[in-house]
């Protein structure tokens, strides 16, 4: 899952979270997660003051952004002193799964 500014949203991306008017999670969502974005939907969001959306996978790459392999290597290095501690192992596994998922790795269900 990736959080992106609405400006970078494109038709075909899949919403990973409900979208609310003005980005504040009060009231009824404008659109439910799992919906595929269309151009007209994006225009409608613009009119409803939506600034960011959460989409499946990791469709937008910024300059200087690390690859999932880089991120996992850095994670290994950060945990290199504490992987004999059971609680830290649990946290390490949670982060590993998180990084893989939000970088569009295999655990992410994608409609592509």
């Amino acid at each position, binding site marked *: 899952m990736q*959080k992106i500014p609405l400006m970078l949203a494109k038709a075909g991306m899949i919403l990973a979270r409900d979208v609310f008017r003005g980005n504040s999670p009060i009231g009824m969502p404008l659109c439910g997660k799992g919906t595929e974005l269309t151009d007209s939907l994006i225009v409608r969001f613009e009119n409803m003051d939506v600034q960011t959306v959460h989409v499946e996978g990791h469709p937008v790459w910024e300059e200087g952004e690390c690859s999932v392999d880089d*991120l996992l290597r*850095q*994670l290994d*290095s*950060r*945990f*290199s*002193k*504490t992987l004999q*501690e059971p*609680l*830290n192992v*649990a*946290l*390490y596994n*949670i*982060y590993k*799964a*998180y990084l893989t998922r*939000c970088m569009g790795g295999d655990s992410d269900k994608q409609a592509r």
Partner: protein
Amino acid sequence: MTSKRGDLKKIIMDTKTLPTLPTVIQKLNSLSDNDKSSVQEMAKIVTSDQVISARILRLANSPSYGFYRVSTISNAMILLGVNVVKSLALSSSIFAIMEKDIVGLWEHSLGVGAAANLIARKLGLPECEEIATAGLLHDIGKVIISIKCSEAEKEILKLVRERRIYTMEAEMEIIDTDHAEVGGWLAKCWFLPDKLGEPIAFHHDVAASRNHRIKTAVVHIADVLICASGFSNSGESFVPPIQKIAWDTLKLNEQILAELVDEIEDKLVEVKNFSLEMMAD
């Protein structure tokens, strides 16, 4: 008490050698003993210093607190509490001295503040604002060490790099104390309440916290999580071990931890934007 540690303590506890505390703080300190002073009265004192007021309002609107648009000091006092506003006045003055060379530590502090708030809310704990503030201030000892003993700080950083050890270990070796203890001294000489002072002093040794162990445990876990996420460079390259006593005190489990990681990562996008905006001007 060996001389290095003693000297440092003397320097820190002597408020005259601290970065000039705004007169506002001194007035607030003298007021807090007087229970009759009202929020309005305190707000009036704070508002008399525009620079400080602006800094407080800025932090009050940071992702460490969950309120939308705190626009006046008396509002901040009501929503966040007098102690929090006082701490914000102090910490923003201290951080302002350091300015841009500690961007990493500043972001780390904002991240831990936000994470501590999320954890406290998720666990339904009282006084979330105090806990968030303790998170924001937890490494303030590092800032003071770098202001007061910049030579020693350089040696500490060098040791950390060369021997790949934790900052705490290097601090112990060079200055015979560590940033947590220093932060605790600082909280005392600022007359911050123990519910802020204990989490600062014991965030690396939760068992030593006697009266506010829950708050201390939250700040400890928040610190570990922010280190684990690799968010900003605070000078610490390794995730500290999660202390079992903190885990048990908060009755955490892997399910809650996984949910927290998701929520914190989400929040960190906001924290990053906030700190970029602050650095921009």
